[in-house]
């Protein structure tokens, strides 16, 4: 074809064939090879510039924060009384500096002062009536009182394909099955949505009450979920403990599992219990076997798990270990995998070998469930920092409460968590340009639960000698000092450039005595029969007018709402309510101390669209008291008032007025009584965004 003449070329071009691809017609329009290469280079260059523009300055990417910076440090459970005492003692110089520069105030907490409720107040800039979270635990009234976690709920799937002994859920045509999904139950509009809509960046690290992470519509909101995020077993954290003296049959204890180890020579085999194999018709947990070899002479042991060898001295923690859980699938479908991470603590080698394994956290480098918005955020952090805790409750308080840890072991584990968090804080600050940065510390809450004891209020600790209680309380004070250093660091870096808010969701109080609401209701004849041991098992609803569930909630067994309700709405309900309030507020301990400071009617304190699941009454305990452990899940004890024998010897689920949080700021605080619900309006105000009607709080910089 190349031998054809010019005329031939022209005619073949006209018929659609291109005999000489480089030439069109006439010498002035010759498309030379050089031109083609230059054109291609220019096109690639233009494409590159366009792509760079999209990623760095495109309409969906560029921040409209205009350099404005607001930094919020959330310190769970930081107490204003202790802060004042430590400031006076000169032990919190950076917070003192912040207070002098701007302000320091109590921060009114939520009713009830429980973390999920309080942080949801912070998120919505409004009370529980707006977000629908009233306690850690809610109940389904149409199932009478079936309890569930208030912040998130896993809904069952719809449709499946049976294949051998498997149930497959195929979410594509023509099957269109709906797999089970976990939904965030917090209602209302979070304040960052208003920033997001105005292209203002907001970044949150370990935000409580936001699992699964709520989506960002415009791509300017990024968030890693905090408290409320489950472990691989779908719980708030289940440790596994192996010992030679454990019961022969493995037992589940609240928040943990104990299994016996039997050594053959100096080697033993155990299995790590993972998530349920949900593809099976009858799901059961996936187990990963591991081998333990101990060396008594060296006082050390080796663990072999999935090809990893981990050597530990007694008392030593392992690094994070990635564990692969394979979900069985019928052939020819490929095996599905879910990745978890855990750490081992060798507690004792001999004579009683003891090994603790942390709750199996979701692997942040390959998360099996969404942990962040966008999902890549947590992976990017894991790539830079390595593996870290991803469950909401990271300090293993259950291991301490159940006696698997002693105080020193708990503190060591809590320190690991804190070090992790401090590394993440560095990462967060290094990656912060402008907009809102929120960073959350849990250490002050969970360490306070274990080590707080104010001897001035109650000289006698329920389980510790006075000297030991004071020494452990010193850990809390040292922790406050450590966090003060963090505040100093952020102030040094951003003091003149950013609005810095240091806040907590509530304070703390001793928890020496516990009150069983249901036992009290039983004693007054509101709950029957007298032999009842739990409202979930053997209560007679036809003779029960009120019941307690969760930490602060009390519900009437209302006709038309509860499945087996008997209390008529209207006059009967009102009479019962008045009676309960009066009697509860008059409860006295053996020494005459008032147990309950105030009982609130939810109809008086909550307003909004999300009040359907609210308890009828909220019990505000006096300092030193709290609902009993059994009350939380509806169990009854013979006595109404008991000592609290748990290592968990401090709490905040008292009356809201007894346990306010703190607010420090490098700008002057003008509000007389700032509250948690004021923080969101304050942040919006800093970015010039008007406060929406749904928020009931006001900016703290306004008088």
């Amino acid at each position, binding site marked *: 074809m190349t031998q054809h003449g010019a005329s031939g070329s022209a005619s073949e071009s006209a018929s659609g064939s291109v005999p000489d691809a480089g030439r069109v017609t006439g010498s002035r329009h010759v498309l030379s090879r050089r031109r083609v290469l230059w054109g291609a280079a220019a096109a690639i260059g233009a494409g590159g510039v366009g792509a760079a523009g999209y990623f760095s300055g495109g309409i969906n990417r560029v921040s409209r924060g205009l350099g404005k910076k607001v930094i919020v440090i959330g310190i769970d459970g930081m107490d204003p009384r202790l802060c004042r005492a430590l400031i006076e003692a000169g032990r919190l110089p950076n917070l003192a500096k912040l207070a002098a520069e701007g302000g320091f105030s109590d921060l009114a907490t939520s009713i009830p002062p429980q973390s999920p409720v309080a942080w949801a107040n912070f998120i919505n800039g409004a009370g529980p009536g707006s977000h629908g979270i009233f306690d850690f635990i809610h109940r389904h009234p149409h199932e009478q009182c079936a309890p569930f976690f208030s912040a998130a709920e896993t809904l069952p799937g719809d449709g499946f394909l049976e294949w051998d002994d498997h149930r497959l859920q195929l979410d594509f045509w023509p099957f269109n099955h709906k797999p089970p999904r976990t939904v965030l139950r917090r209602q209302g509009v979070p304040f960052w949505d208003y920033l997001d809509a105005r292209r203002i960046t907001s970044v949150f690290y370990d935000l409580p009450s936001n699992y699964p992470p709520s989506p960002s519509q415009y791509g300017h909101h990024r968030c890693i979920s905090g408290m409320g995020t489950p472990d691989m077993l779908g719980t708030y954290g289940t440790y596994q403990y192996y010992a030679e003296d454990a019961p022969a049959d493995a037992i589940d204890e609240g928040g943990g599992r104990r299994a016996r180890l039997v050594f053959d020579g*100096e080697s033993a085999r155990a299995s790590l219990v993972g998530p349920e194999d949900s593809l099976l018709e009858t799901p059961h947990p996936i187990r990963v076997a591991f081998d333990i070899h101990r060396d008594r002479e060296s006082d*050390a042991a*080796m663990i072999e798990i999935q090809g990893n060898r981990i*050597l530990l001295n007694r008392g030593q923690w392992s690094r994070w270990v990635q564990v692969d859980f394979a979900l069985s699938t019928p052939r020819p479908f490929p095996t599905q995998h879910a990745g978890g991470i855990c750490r081992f603590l060798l507690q004792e080698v001999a004579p009683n070998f003891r090994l603790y394994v942390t709750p199996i956290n979701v692997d942040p480098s390959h998360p099996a469930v969404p942990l962040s918005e966008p999902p890549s955020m947590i992976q990017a952090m894991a790539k830079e920092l390595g593996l870290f805790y991803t469950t909401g409750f990271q300090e293993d308080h259950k291991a301490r409460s159940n006696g698997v840890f002693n105080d020193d072991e708990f503190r060591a584990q809590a320190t690991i968590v804190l070090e992790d968090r401090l590394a993440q804080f560095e990462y967060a600050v290094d990656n912060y340009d402008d907009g809102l940065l929120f960073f959350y510390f849990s250490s002050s809450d969970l360490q306070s639960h274990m080590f707080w004891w104010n001897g001035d209020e109650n000289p006698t600790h329920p389980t510790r000698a006075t000297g030991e209680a004071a020494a452990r309380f010193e850990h809390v004070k040292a922790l406050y000092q450590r966090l003060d250093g963090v505040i100093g660091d952020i102030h040094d870096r951003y003091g003149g450039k950013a609005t810095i808010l240091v806040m907590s969701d509530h304070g703390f109080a001793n928890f020496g005595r516990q009150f069983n609401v249901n036992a009290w209701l039983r004693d007054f004849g509101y709950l029957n029969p007298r032999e009842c041991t739990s409202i979930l098992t053997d209560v007679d609803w036809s003779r029960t007018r009120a019941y307690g569930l969760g930490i602060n909630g009390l519900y009437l067994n209302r006709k038309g709402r509860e499945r087996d309700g008997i209390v008529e709405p209207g006059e009967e309900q009102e009479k019962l309510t008045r009676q309960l309030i009066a009697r509860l507020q008059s409860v006295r301990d053996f020494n005459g101390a008032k147990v309950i400071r105030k009982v609130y009617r939810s109809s008086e304190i909550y307003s909004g669209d999300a009040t359907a699941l609210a308890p009828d009454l909220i019990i505000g305990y006096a300092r030193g008291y709290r609902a009993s452990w059994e009350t939380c899940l509806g169990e009854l004890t013979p006595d109404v008032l008991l000592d609290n024998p748990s290592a968990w010897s401090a709490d905040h689920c008292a009356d809201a007025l007894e346990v306010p949080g703190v607010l420090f700021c490098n700008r002057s605080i003008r509000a007389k009584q700032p509250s948690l619900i004021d923080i969101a309006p304050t942040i919006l105000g800093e970015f010039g965004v008007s406060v929406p009607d749904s928020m009931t709080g006001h900016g703290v910089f306004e008088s």
Partner: protein
Amino acid sequence: MLTQLLIALNGLASAVAKPLLMPVAWCPGWLSITAIGAVTGIAMLVAFKYTSNQSAIRATRDRIKANLLALALFRDDIRVGLRCQGALLLGAANLLILSIVPMLVMFPPMCLLLAQLALWYQVRPLAVGEQAVVTVRLAEDRLDRLSAVQMGPSSSALSRVGPIRVPAQGIVCWSVEAREPGLHRLAFDLDGAVFSKELSVAVGGAWMPTSMKRPDRGLFELLLHPRERPFTEASPVRSIEIEYPERSSWTAGSRTWLVYWFVISLAAAFAARPVFGVHM
């Protein structure tokens, strides 16, 4: 006999690879593996040219082309079409047979080369302060001496945990922490005899050859671990192994380097084919 031959070949390969692969230590990983992939691809191409029957391959390829053309021209004739497809299959099989000899010739050097490359890319050296598990495996008839195995003092590494003796597996393990950068030797003492193993410690992710295991005299082990001399048959120590960390990279990472090298060498060989006039 085969063992001795393999030991000798490993020694030869190490001697040749040492100067040739030295630039790997200076280059970024992606560059060195790309360059090595390209060079080996071209070297394989040249080797193929001189170890294969080029005229037979050319003739076979011509026949394949002719049959392809016939298929296109006589689309309507089923008999011709079927005959051509059969001939195409035969041609492809013939090409495969013609490549057996060059493949067999290239197989041993490629195995040796890949074992040498694995020393650089399969794992990364320890960083200073990083820990790794060291495992000494004893011969089955010497398991009663497990408790006598001691790790010698070393300025390059510090024992952090161990020894942990596992009679069921015939091993003794330590967790050692790297202290000084460089190529060191860890020494282990058993009944007065000293057994050593190379330890690689680098600064800032630097590249250096890293031998994971000083092996026993099994053929497969010798092939996979060519850098250190294997223990003798009579040795009470069968092997010493260090669990080095993986290297993470899309091109020169522990899990990717082999695939990346293979793709680059294939691409280089195909690109260079017209230049060297090789029929494949």
